[in-house]
């Protein structure tokens, strides 16, 4: 059935239907339970690595771990696609995660170069919080947005309790746990 382009009722219905479908797919693409859980676990592991090797070596930890997260998520999404007939995209959030890892390392180095300890120790965490927040808004993931709102005061509290590698590790552990909790509240593709 062709649509009469000057039928205002049909045009309006068509537009509403199209927008609903596009919005529905946005929600589907935001059903990132598995990758979020994996990133949460990676952050908790990164906290241990930070205490062992120091915060200057975190990028060397994240590079292979993010690769594992990406490969595992791709495998998981392919399995879901076999069942549901919809393959979720991963390219956008993979690029975002890589960008955030590099940006957080750059902020840390900048803080060290400027002698700004707060920027060096708290800046990278805030970069990730911003990234999670944007991802949460994009995917209509309220749990993730709420988690980022909790991350800000928790970072401030931790900054008063610890410093150096201990502070960075504590932020990674707390943020990792919060992302993990958000993942549990995030829908899986159905």
């Amino acid at each position: 059935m062709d649509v009469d382009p000057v039928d205002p009722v049909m045009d309006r219905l068509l537009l509403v239907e199209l927008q609903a479908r596009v919005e529905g797919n946005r929600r589907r693409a935001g059903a990132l339970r598995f990758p979020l859980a994996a990133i949460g676990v990676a952050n908790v592991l990164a906290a241990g690595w930070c205490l062992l090797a120091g915060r200057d070596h975190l990028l060397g930890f994240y590079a292979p771990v993010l690769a594992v997260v990406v490969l595992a998520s791709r495998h998981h999404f392919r399995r879901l696609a076999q069942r549901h007939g919809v393959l979720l995209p991963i390219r956008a959030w993979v690029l975002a995660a890589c960008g955030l890892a590099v940006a957080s390392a750059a902020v840390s180095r900048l803080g060290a170069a400027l002698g700004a300890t707060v920027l060096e120790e708290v800046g990278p965490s805030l970069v990730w919080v911003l990234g999670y927040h944007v991802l949460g808004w994009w995917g209509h993931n309220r749990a993730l947005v709420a988690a980022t709102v909790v991350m800000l005061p928790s970072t401030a509290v931790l900054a008063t309790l610890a410093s150096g590698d201990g502070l960075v590790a504590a932020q990674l552990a707390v943020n990792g746990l919060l992302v993990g909790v958000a993942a549990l509240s995030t829908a899986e593709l159905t």
Partner: protein
Amino acid sequence: MTPHPIHRLDNAVHQRVRLGILAACIGVAKVDFSYLKTTLGLTDGNLGQHLETLESAGLIAVERVPQGRRQRTWIRVTARGRQALRQEIAALRELIDGIDGIGDG
């Protein structure tokens, strides 16, 4: 003088089922034939015809993957298809705004 938005409606796209197919493929990597059939409430033949039209216009890419004894058909929207859907939505919005403007006096 700006051309009327009706002239920006593409015949390959401006059809309810084909628009539904494009919209169902937007934002995800790819969808399979059965998913589209169920989501849009179509028969195999009807969906197949519309897929052919969209594929020949370069708006979607169709991939047939052997799965056991059968083939599974996956559909992915192309960059041209995404652009066409964006233009369609923009043209529809303009049409509706124009009509609303007449109603407002």
